[in-house]
């Protein structure tokens, strides 16, 4: 590939040189495009002065004028030294304009351009990511070969940058460097490999673009990232989506077996039924194996489907071609609706989409038949759109709809756009040829058109009739006679030639007319078009052979005329015919067969769609549009006979995407592995359940007898680093666990039910389980149900980790006339409703009198919020205190619940604003589940921040304590020392909220929150940040 594009570069260089040459002649005239002379020279002088002035405004003015010159295509290169001085300007706009100038002219003034490099090198180290990114952008755009090593270094560094935005720019820079110096390919591939592993949606599209440009044949780099790319796809920006989808289409065609084989599968089955031969049977057995789609193949097809709803036509088209090329034929139907929608767009989009539909509609008529009327032509359509629509209508025509279509065609034939009318006639011809029922109707219709006033229409009709008659000769003497008469009036050469050919071919059927026609033609021979002359010669020859008595002299006359014609083709033909038909002593053996040669049965022409041969190009590509291979076109390979090893896409344990290994698949491949993989899962599930303290690990069954030991064992079974923290809060844990085990039975069943419902409605949210589901065959159903039930457990609520309760003031005793109220969040599941957060309110009477009838009134709640109030308290003794609990459904928002706290005499307005961490319920989850869920909540659903943490914050116990203090989350046992994970779900909607704290070297830590509730997620992030960073 590299040599290929390298060669291309050279070629294009040559091309530019010639183009430049042309330019010298072609563009010198308009308004002195080259400012080499007089007035412009002076102007440039004053620009130089302005650039050297001290005032930014003067500089800016100058730069603006220079950019104006560049935009108009004028040469401003001589200002280079003056401009490049300003590269370090403080003014952002000047700087930007200088960049524009630099990128445009650096290639021409390489030595001077080097002066600016150090500025960019400095900027590459800037703490601001956007400045780093823009420095890299300009640096890599300066096409100066000397700085290749510097660029390489900068790219390598940027590829490891913390900011995804800088990494995105690094991916862009790869392509620039590659086009500047293809020698760097190997090094660049290394960078690409690294960036492909990037999990940021910002990077994905750009790096795949770089991959496509630099090393599209290194499909092996994709394997490990395939699933990640599929999952990120929806969140990537639209342009990146197009590139990734095209790449994945090619990938799929090399890695999976064809899903289309099913169609002929039935035949094979039958054969094997009758075959008794052992060897044969073995062979067919192999083929008989029912086709099951690789789950990865399915993953791609499923994850691209929502993109059909994109507003970007290019994305829709990309998905459409993906479905066309890699999905089972039965599923490709869904793309037609979206493609038809694109027809509402601008004419250019229509043009491309219609072309692709035309190709599709040849192979699979059924897909677009329901949308037949969408392809009806409007008189306002541009001609190219009209003809494409006609093409599609022709492809879609069948016995059922042809009568409606013909009626529609009748309108088109009368169109004022004659070119279009002619195309319609061609179309009618094709319909007539393809659908035998309507051939006669069409033919008579076309004959009617022969009397049309417009010559183009008549000519086109003649040509089409000729083709049709050729297909079914014999019965159409009348039509031929009619057409012979037309020769007097019609002037279009093609039509005249067609008529002459027809008469010649059928000269025996119209014995009287044919010689007469020849006579007339002989008279006008000299003034005819070359095309017609050739046919006159042919006609003469044919008549000479069949009816030499009448036409001998005429033919000789014509041959004499032809002998001295100006056109050598005609002279050639004349000589050839004379030798062949006029017997003389020199004539060879061939002349005996002259009649056979001239009057042989000719095969009827096939009226075919011009789009017939386009299907070997990938749809949606430039090559398909041009029907010619464009430079850099990558062939779509055929499906492999046997799928390459699918395990290459499995990612190491540490990696996020690991969970995508479907259990069922592993079983199929390697039956001995089955036991292990399943037991592993079991272990996992017991892990998660033992964590919640409800059940001990299966190994520790004996220890169960000792009352408290179950907790200890559960901690043991969780991984090492966690246990330390566990021990510290050991006692609390025990207490909590005990309490929990009492209520557990009830709560759990409720939760499970809810989860059931949830998994029903939002199937797609759980990509893994459904991926197995859809690709399942009977043999796999067992493992499938297993994995499904496992995934349901994922969001089981666990007991909250104990933290000292924080109380907040609800009503101060001063403003409450002696009544004081505090509220706190006990972090218990609310007894009033499972969407509510439980709130404890402690009321104190600080007066020396009894306070009577304390109750709540006038709830002013935002929409959707609900509140369950406590029962009115009849009286509160002086110095007495009482604690009541209530439930508030905050709808997963931090909006305040305002209400009035009333006593017998007074009313006090109070409000409760929940800290975001209290809107959560802890969830018990294994590390594996956590990663799986996290994998599904990337992209938009991820917020992250880097924090500088004080070293004393580093012990796991401290981090755990700090996070839990803020958020009511469950601890996920972690396999690594430096990563802490917490899982929770929101109370109202049950959306997962996953918190990851990853400690890095040098007292930094990465805080990542994954949740569908992005708003809450970002608030939580904001609250956690100071807590973790403070000392």
């Amino acid at each position, binding site marked *: 590939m590299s040599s290929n594009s390298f060669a291309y570069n050279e070629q294009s260089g040559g091309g*530019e040189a010639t183009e430049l040459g042309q330019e010298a002649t072609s563009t010198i005239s308009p308004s002195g495009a080259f400012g080499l002379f007089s007035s412009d020279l002076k102007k440039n002088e004053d620009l130089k002065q302005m650039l050297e002035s001290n005032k930014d405004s003067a500089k800016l003015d100058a730069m603006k004028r220079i950019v104006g010159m560049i935009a108009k295509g004028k040469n401003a290169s001589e200002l280079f030294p003056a401009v490049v001085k300003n590269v370090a300007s403080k003014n952002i706009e000047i700087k930007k304009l200088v960049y524009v100038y630099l990128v445009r002219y650096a290639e021409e003034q390489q030595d001077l351009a080097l002066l600016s490099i150090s500025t960019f090198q400095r900027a590459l180290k800037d703490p601001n990511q956007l400045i780093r990114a823009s420095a890299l952008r300009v640096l890599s755009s300066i096409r100066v070969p000397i700085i290749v090593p510097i660029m390489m270094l900068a790219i390598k560094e940027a590829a490891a940058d913390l900011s995804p935005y800088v990494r995105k720019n690094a991916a862009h820079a790869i392509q620039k460097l590659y086009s500047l110096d293809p020698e760097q390919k190997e090094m660049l591939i290394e960078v690409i490999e690294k960036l492909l592993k990037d999990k940021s949606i910002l990077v994905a599209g750009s790096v795949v673009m770089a991959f496509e440009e630099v090393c599209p044949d290194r499909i092996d780099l994709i394997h490990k990232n395939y699933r990640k790319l599929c999952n990120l796809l929806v969140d990537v920006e639209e342009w990146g989506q197009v590139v990734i989808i095209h790449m994945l289409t090619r990938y799929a065609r090399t890695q999976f077996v064809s899903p289309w084989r099913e169609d002929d599968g039935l035949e094979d089955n039958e054969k094997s039924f009758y075959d008794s031969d052992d060897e044969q049977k073995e062979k067919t057995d192999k083929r008989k194996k029912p086709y099951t789609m690789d789950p990865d193949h399915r993953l791609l097809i499923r994850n691209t489907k929502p993109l059909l709803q994109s507003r970007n036509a290019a994305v829709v088209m990309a998905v459409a071609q993906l479905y066309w090329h890699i999905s089972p034929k039965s599923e490709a139907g869904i793309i037609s609706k979206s493609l038809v929608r694109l027809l509402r767009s601008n004419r250019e989009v229509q043009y491309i989409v219609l072309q692709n539909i035309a190709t599709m509609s040849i192979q699979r008529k059924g897909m677009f038949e329901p949308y037949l009327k969408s392809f009806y032509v409007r008189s306002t359509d541009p001609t190219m759109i009209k003809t494409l629509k006609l093409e599609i209508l022709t492809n879609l025509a069948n016995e059922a709809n042809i009568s409606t279509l013909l009626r529609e065609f009748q309108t088109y034939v009368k169109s004022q756009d004659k070119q279009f009318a002619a195309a319609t006639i061609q179309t009618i011809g094709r319909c007539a040829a393809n659908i035998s029922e309507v051939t006669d109707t069409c033919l008579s219709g076309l004959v009617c058109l022969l009397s049309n006033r417009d010559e183009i229409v008549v000519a086109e009709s003649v040509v089409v009739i000729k083709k049709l008659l050729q297909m079914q000769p014999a019965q159409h003497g009348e039509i031929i006679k009619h057409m012979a008469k037309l020769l007097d009036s019609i002037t279009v050469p093609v039509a005249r030639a067609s008529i002459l050919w027809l008469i010649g071919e059928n000269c025996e059927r119209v014995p009287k007319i044919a010689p007469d026609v020849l006579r007339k033609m002989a008279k006008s021979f000299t003034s005819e078009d070359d095309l017609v002359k050739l046919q006159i010669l042919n006609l003469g020859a044919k008549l000479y052979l069949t009816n030499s008595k009448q036409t001998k002299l005429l033919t000789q006359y014509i041959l004499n005329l032809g002998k001295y014609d100006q056109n050598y083709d005609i002279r050639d033909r004349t000589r050839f015919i004379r030798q062949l038909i006029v017997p003389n002593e020199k004539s060879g053996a061939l002349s005996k067969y002259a009649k056979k040669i001239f009057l042989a049965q000719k095969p009827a022409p096939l009226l075919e769609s011009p789009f017939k041969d386009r299907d070997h190009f990938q749809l949606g590509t430039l090559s398909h549009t041009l029907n010619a291979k464009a430079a*850099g076109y990558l062939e779509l390979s055929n499906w492999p006979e046997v799928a390459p090893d699918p395990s290459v896409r499995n990612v190491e344990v540490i990696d996020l995407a690991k969970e995508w290994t479907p259990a069922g698949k592993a079983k199929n491949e390697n039956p001995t592995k089955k036991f292990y993989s399943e037991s592993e899962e079991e272990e996992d599930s017991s892990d998660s359940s033992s964590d919640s303290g409800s059940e001990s690990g299966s190994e520790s069954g004996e220890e169960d007898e000792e009352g408290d030991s179950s907790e200890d064992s559960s901690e043991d079974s969780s991984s090492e680093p966690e246990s330390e923290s566990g021990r510290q809060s050991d006692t609390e844990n025990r207490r909590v666990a005990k309490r929990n085990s009492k209520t557990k039975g009830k709560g759990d069943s409720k939760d499970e039910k809810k989860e059931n419902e949830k998994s029903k409605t939002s199937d797609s949210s759980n990509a893994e389980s459904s991926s197995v589901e859809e690709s399942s065959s009977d043999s796999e159903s067992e493992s499938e149900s297993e994995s499904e039930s496992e995934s349901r457990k994922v969001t089981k609520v666990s007991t909250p980790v104990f933290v000292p309760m924080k109380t907040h003031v609800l009503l101060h005793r001063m403003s409450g006339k002696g009544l004081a109220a505090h509220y706190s969040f006990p972090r218990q599941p609310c007894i009033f409703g499972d969407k509510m957060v439980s709130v404890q309110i402690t009321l104190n009477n600080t007066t020396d009198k009894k306070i009577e009838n304390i109750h709540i009134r006038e709830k002013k709640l935002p929409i959707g919020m609900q509140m369950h109030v406590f029962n009115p308290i009849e009286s509160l003794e002086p110095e007495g205190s009482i604690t009541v609990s209530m439930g508030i459904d905050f709808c997963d928002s931090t909006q305040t619940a305002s209400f009035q706290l009333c006593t017998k005499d007074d009313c006090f307005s109070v409000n409760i604003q929940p800290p975001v961490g209290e809107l959560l319920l802890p969830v018990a989850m294994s590390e594996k589940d956590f990663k799986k869920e996290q994998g599904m909540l990337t992209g938009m659903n991820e917020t992250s921040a880097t924090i500088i943490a004080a070293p004393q914050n580093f012990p796991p116990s401290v981090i755990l304590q700090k996070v839990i203090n803020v958020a009511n989350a469950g601890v996920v046992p972690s396999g690594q020392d430096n990563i802490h994970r917490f899982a929770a779900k929101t109370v109202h909607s049950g959306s997962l909220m996953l918190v990851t704290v990853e400690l890095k070297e040098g007292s930094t830590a990465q805080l990542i929150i994954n949740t569908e509730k992005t708003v809450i997620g970002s608030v939580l992030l904001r609250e956690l940040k100071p807590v973790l960073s403070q000392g």
Partner: protein
Amino acid sequence: MIHSLFLINSSGDIFLEKHWKSVVSRSVCDYFFEAQERATEAENVPPVIPTPHHYLLSVYRHKIFFVAVIQTEVPPLFVIEFLHRVVDTFQDYFGVCSEPVIKDNVVVVYEVLEEMLDNGFPLATESNILKELIKPPTILRTVVNTITGSTNVGDQLPTGQLSVVPWRRTGVKYTNNEAYFDVVEEIDAIIDKSGSTITAEIQGVIDACVKLTGMPDLTLSFMNPRLLDDVSFHPCVRFKRWESERILSFIPPDGNFRLLSYHVSAQNLVAIPVYVKHNISFRDSSSLGRFEITVGPKQTMGKTIEGVIVTSQMPKGVLNMSLSPSQGTHTFDPVTKMLSWDVGKINPQKLPSLKGTVSLQAGASRPDENPTINLQFKIQQLAISGLKVNRLDMYGEKYKPFKGIKYMTKAGKFQVRT
């Protein structure tokens, strides 16, 4: 990907060029001019033109050709869609996209183009982000800039591009928080000679103008979401919510944007709100023809039809027309042969009509086809498909926004064959 961009006006001058990789000589456009000559009409210039070393992909809008030069295989829609996005951005920035405006603002145009592509690959195409990078020119700002010497380039670097909601800028503040939604439906139809419908379908869009402080999270639900057969979303819409609950849930971009476009399922019969009675006849012998059209309401659900404009491309043989309308004004351009009649409102009691004679070129043969009639109209406060917004809620922010929803029905490509 995209190598260079040339802007060419209708008289064939290249008035702007921009290169993202090495410079491509503007002489490459000669191939384009050749194709343009061959096509006679601007509309018929093929969008993809191959040349020996490059490919030219073009779009034609606002009487300007935007010609992109590419060198290697790339999905053509990718380039075309991007060019349209460029035009949309210009329109967004300058109000109109025309040659003089682009020439006047050439620096801003250049800066915007620089940000939109990096090495020919789209970088920032969201107008919210672009506007933060490069502020659109306003009269006030131009005045301020000339006095103070400040610039159009945003001094704050946009963070939106890096955030989880790349389409919304951060730190938005309004004193009046408002969110307006326009449901606009267009009827595409072909009506045949006898007045029966050949095809008719409804396409709709919901355009939004959202000016809300902070990071609001909106949900919009419909009374009858089933009507929507095929939809395409702004990237901000959460697809999962739509799939499962048929609710539009989104964090909106700031300002104007198209939230949704939809197609109403074909099973529903489309109510055609207008009919046209026509009597157009040419005779072989005489050079005069008769012309008479009447427009009337039909299935309008009690609403008035406004803004009716009738246009028709007359056959080439027509010399002139002498017509008298019962209301409105009409014009006939003898060069382009375009008849246009601005009717205005339709009064059901007194139907508007246009009557008169057509004079044909002497000696020319009778045109074989009657002209098709194109119709434009508007009906306020009606979504012809019956689509209704149920409610709009806001989460994530504490203030109460002002909400408004407007319905409108328009003619799309509405043709009557005669």
